[in-house]
Structure formats: C-alpha cells, structure tokens
C-alpha cells in the first residue's frame, strides 16, 4: 500500500519565521518540506504516512483575511491531493487555534478528506470541536511530544477510515456525539471519587456536561427611537402563506427573509405559521399575534419609531439545534447591521 499523503498547516512561529512581528506572513506552500512540529509527526507516522507539503501562514494574516487566506490555502492543498489534512497543534495560542479550527473545518467541508488538529481545551478555536476532531493538548508547546503521541495515531485512523472511539479513549475534545466505552473503574467508584474532589474544591470532570448557553453583554440603549430603524425577527415560524422556503415545522435547517414593504397588516390570507410546536390556529387566523407588523406600522406612522425595517427574518424554534439557531443569527445579524438597523424586536412563542 502506498503511503498516506498528508499536508500539514503551521503558523509563522512554528515555522521559525518569527513571532508577533511576522504574524502578517502570507500563506506559503512548501512542497516536499517537513517543517517544525512536522518532524515529530514524520517520526511518529513511520512508514505509514508522509508529509508531502507544509503550508505556513501568519496568524494575524489568517485572522484578518480569513476568506482570502482560506481560498489560497485551499488551492495549495488541492494541488497536493492529500489523504489527510493536519493542522497545528496550536496549544493555547488563540489566533493560531482559530486558524487551525477554521481551516480544518473548511477543508473537511470542501474537500471531504479527513482532517485533524490539536489545541488546549480553553483555546477559543476549541469551539470547532463540534465540527472537526481536535486533540486535547497541554497549554504550551512544552506539550508537543504528548500532543503528537495522541494526534499521530488518530490521524492514521482517520485516514484509513477506521472506527473512531470515544473522546476519552482517543484524546480528542468532546464533540457532543456520545460514544460508549469501558472505563477503568466502575461507575459508583467514579462517583465517589468525583464527590471527594468536589468536596475538596478540586477540579473534577463531569462525564456528561449539561447543555450550556452563551452570555452576551447587553447592547447600549437606543437613544433616538423616533429616528431608529426597527427590525422584526421571530422564532415563531411566521411565513408568507404557502411557506415558500419550506421551513421545517421542527428542527429547522434554515430561516426565511421576507419583504414587508407596504404590508400594513398580516392577514389570514397572506401569512401563516410554519411552526409545529404549538397549536397554529391563532397564528394562522392573525399572524400579528406572533409578529406585530400592524402595531409597528401604526407606531411608524405616529413617529414613535423611525421606521420598520423592510425585511423580517423568521425561523421555527421548535427542537432546532442551538448551533443552527446561532448560525442563522450570525448570518442575518450581519445583514441587519449592514442595512442600518438600530434595534431588533425578536418574538418567540
């Protein structure tokens, strides 16, 4: 069998180009070269895989020009026809971690080849753990040996398409997919040990993290409401009659953007709800009961608000994954900002 072809991504620091002062270094492809941490991987891969090229990119450059950098790097990778794409490890370096997470996800999505990176669990880039395998490393480059020891075998497994065991066994950061495995101790012993740690105020790791939500700082108040543009957003599933975008009644995979220029009132003939999580009778009779267009038009006319934004955004918040909802909002929030919207009223059911 021929060797597994690996392309390795590292930053300017690990390529020995320089530190912060060289962080603007543009993507560079070094065919046939094994650089920095690549040496350790090469040793660990033995005869099974070879690093056919190394890509070096400055962390600031990647962070500030993510789109261009990704496109350039993608082309570099394509040309090498790799079986596996490896990035990092990034340890606790935040921008490097972001780059590793971002580029591995992009490669996985676009090229469909297995990818692997590694970083410290508190690295901001660790958010990508739900998208790609990220090996949990120590928080500094002193943990290189340990990181390579875990990453190299997992990389080979991924490249060969072998079954990936649980995060606890393979050493990757938990990705939300629950996998069974046998622990060293039985559950009751683990429970007693965990309690003793908790009682002593020591660090302990729960085996099942409870769902966790982000917190954001409140935005400042709207100073001049009479001249403000207000947009409506809803998770109550209000859509034009017939649900033109086919938003699902539960676990929605997308959202809709609808023009309400000239619409003064939502009526039973024109709007309805796509939401499957509540009795739709009332919303279908009068969608203003969920999305108060009629009242906002009045307030607009009276000058209480500057204007009602031309588009409203709608999805169904019924069993929809938090990650999806977050992705929707990230996308349309940018649009809202670009369109000069000052504030949003979000209605939910």
């Amino acid at each position, binding site marked *: 069998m021929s060797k597994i072809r690996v392309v390795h991504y590292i930053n300017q620091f690990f390529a020995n180009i320089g530190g912060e002062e060289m962080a603007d270094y543009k993507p560079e492809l070094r065919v046939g070269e094994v650089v920095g941490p690549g040496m350790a991987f090469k040793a660990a891969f033995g005869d099974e895989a070879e690093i056919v090229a190394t890509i070096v990119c400055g962390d600031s450059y990647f962070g500030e020009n993510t789109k261009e950098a990704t496109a350039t790097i993608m082309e570099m990778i394509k040309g090498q026809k790799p079986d596996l794409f490896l990035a990092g490890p990034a340890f606790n370096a935040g921008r490097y971690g972001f780059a590793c997470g971002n580029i591995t996800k992009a490669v996985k999505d676009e090229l469909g080849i297995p990818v692997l990176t590694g970083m410290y669990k508190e690295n901001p880039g660790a958010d990508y753990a739900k998208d790609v395998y990220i090996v949990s490393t120590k928080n500094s480059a002193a943990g290189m040996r340990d990181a390579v020891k875990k990453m190299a075998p997992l990389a080979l497994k991924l490249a060969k398409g072998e079954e990936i065991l649980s995060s606890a066994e393979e050493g990757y950061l938990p990705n939300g*997919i629950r996998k*069974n495995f046998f622990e060293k101790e039985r559950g009751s012993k683990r429970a007693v040990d965990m309690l003793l740690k908790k*009682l002593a105020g020591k660090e302990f790791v729960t*085996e099942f993290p*409870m769902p966790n939500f982000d917190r954001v700082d409140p935005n400042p108040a709207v100073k001049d409401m009479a001249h403000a543009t207000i947009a409506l957003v809803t998770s109550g599933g209000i859509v034009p009659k017939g649900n033109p975008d086919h938003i699902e009644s539960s676990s929605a995979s997308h959202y809709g953007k609808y023009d309400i220029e000239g619409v003064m009132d939502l009526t039973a003939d024109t709007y309805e709800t796509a939401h499957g999580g509540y009795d739709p009778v009332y919303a279908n009779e009068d969608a203003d009961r969920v999305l108060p267009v009629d009242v906002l038009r009045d307030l607009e006319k009276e000058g209480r608000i500057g204007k009602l934004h031309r588009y409203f955004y709608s999805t169904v918040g019924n069993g929809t994954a938090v990650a999806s909802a977050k992705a929707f909002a990230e996308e349309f929030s940018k649009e809202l900002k670009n369109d000069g919207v000052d504030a949003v009223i979000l209605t939910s059911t």
Partner: protein
Amino acid sequence: MKLELGYVNIHDIQFADQSKVEAGVLYVCKEDIKNLVLEDENIKSVELEIAKPGDSIRIMPVKDVIEPRCKVEGPGDIFPGVISKVDTVGSGKTNVLRGSAVVTTGKIVAFQEGIIDMSGEGAKYTPFSQTNNLVVVIEPVDGLHQHEHEKAVRFAGLKTAKFLGDLAKNVTPDETEVFETYGVKEGMEKMPNLPRVAYVQMLQSQGLMHDTYVYGVDAKRTLSTIMNPTEGMDGAILSGNCVSACDKNTTYHHLNNPVVKDLFAQHGKTLNFVGMILTNENVYLADKQRSSDWTAKLCRWLDLDGAVVSQEGFGNPDTDLIMNCKKIEEQGVKTVIITDEYAGQDGKSQSLADADPKADAVVTGGNANMVIHLPKMDKVIGYPEVANIIAGGHEGSLNADGSIDAELQVITGATNELGFNKLSAR
C-alpha cells in the same frame, strides 16, 4: 449498626440429588425448588436450568436476578417483610453465596426485554454473565392476571434464593468483611474532620412492573426515608421492576449496591458515610415534588456535606433526578449524580429528558441506544418462541441465523444507574 458479610465463594453450580453447598459448589436438587415454587397455586409449572460463565446460552426474558444469602447471626432474616417477617435487618452476620445467582424468567406481558448472554459480545455488558446461575422458568396457570403473574414470579425467585442461601448457614466463609455506620452524634465524634456523605437512592415506583419494595412496602406509597446501608445487604429493598432492562435495578443490584460498597470503602478514611436516603419515582408530578423536597430536607437535617444520588429507569425519573440534585445543592450539599443516557443510535440526541446547570457532576452508565450484534447462542433459556418480539430491536430484528441486532437497552443491567459497571460514554 454493624454487619459482617461472610463470602462463601461459589465457582460451580450442579444439579444433584441433594441440595447443598460444598467446596465452593452449589448443588441443587430440582425437586426441592419445584416443590417450593409450586406451593403457589398461581404457578402451573416450573423448569430449572443452569447457565454458567462462558456457556453458549441466552436467557430471556429476564425478570429478576437474586443473590442467595442467609442470616447467620442477628435479628431478622433475609427479605424482611416479604419472605421473612418484618424485623430490622442489617446487623449481625450474613453469609453470601458469592458468584451465584437465581435468575427468573417468565412471560408476564407480551412485550418483554431483558437478555443475559453467558458468552460472546452481549456477555461483556451484563454482570450476570459472570455468575453461576440457576434459571427458574415459570409458567403461570391459564388466565392469570398480569399483576398476580408478576407477583408469582417475584415470589418464586425470592423463595428460591432464600432456600439456596440457607444452604450456606453452617458453611465457613472464605472471606469476611465488616460494615459499620454510626448514629449522628457518634459519627461526628469519631470522625470530626471528615465530610459527612450520604447516599440518596431513587427507587422505581410507578405501577405494574415498575415497582420496588422496602421491607415489603410499595415504595410509591412512601415518603423519602432514612435507612442504614447494611439493611439493604440483607434484602430490605426488593425489585418488582421488570421494565427497561438495561437500567432497572435487580434485587441482586440492591443486595450488592455498589455505591454503598464504594462509600464504605472510603468510610473513616476520606469521608463519613452517614447513611442512606431512600426516595421514590412516582408518576404524579406533585409526588415528585414532595419526595424531592423531603429528600433535600433530610440531607440538610443530617448536616451533610455531600451526597451521591442514583437513578433508576428511563424518561420521567430524569425529572426526579434533576429535582433531587437541584434541591439538595440548594441546601448547600454537594452532589454527584449517576444516570445513563438515551442519546439515540447515532449518539447525537439529547441524552436526558431533563437538565439543570446545578447538575455539574454526572457519572453516566453509557448510551442505552447503542446498537449491538448478539451472536447466535446454542441454547436459549426462557421463551424463545417470542424471541422476535422480545429481541428488543424491531419486528424482524431476530436474524435468520439466530443472532440479534438490538439496542443495548435490552441487556439486563447494561447501563445500570447505580454505577455497577465500567461502561461509560463521552
């Protein structure tokens, strides 16, 4: 309260003309057991089988698993309030036929799960592939109502276990172990610097085939209460729970409660094991609220620093578990909870039917939806004719070659929420 367990190691089980325990072998005279079980006029016939570790045997549907024990010294007798008269147990000396078990099987309702494979892939997931089992196959009289049928099977198992346990009354144990807990004040004086820890055990208590008995009292009609952990070792808690095979607690589990064992292992060293709080899992929400309020109140009243909380069963007990955890934490008592997960076959679904950020220390017995392949066994004990239904997959999950593709949830004790096993998930 102080109890000495004497372990009589059983490494083999055989049918014989005379029932006895000798040199680590449990000899069973079929007639003895048959006569005992058939005392119940609701039972038409009984068959006995032996299943040993490594045998190519599948037992299904399993109702209960019971370890034979006998009282050697001290008040009361095994299974008080049910098989023996009501008397406080948990002190003196008790002999345990370690390595043996009575397994009951009976077709109480048309749909049944609960598989024990003595070898192969399935054997890894059930602790009862490691015991020398006497399997009691019980056929009820025609037309027996499900409630009476369940009771008949339950009593047959307990009586058989008691009978076998009594065979070891005069046998010198291979090993002994002493367990002792103290009164509140005495414990504090003996271990002034150790954190006070209790074990909160949630008992399934919802209805037919979902019940647990404490000294013979149906747990759903009880308020949360305090018990000495050693009482359970003498059979104070009995299973009448036949549903959700993977995470129900058999009587064997109650007798050998691993949380009790592991807390005792630290007792006097790193913690003071104060005692046990028993609470139930009822269907009525106000009952859930009352029971969890009461549990939290008892935790406070015992001046605990910490508690281990274990769950039993699927679905609505998640709500009891979270209520207990939240309310106990609100009393300033630190908790670790033990549960299992239903994360879907792909492991991507939400594992529990309830959640709270206060539940920050969780031990899991694994994902019960995981699919496993159970190879064909040479022999099936129980009710193979309904294998397709009880196989626990879907209609047709029993393959032509006799193997079964099913979720882990069909295997007795696979994702036990007392933490009996090493299985976990991440």
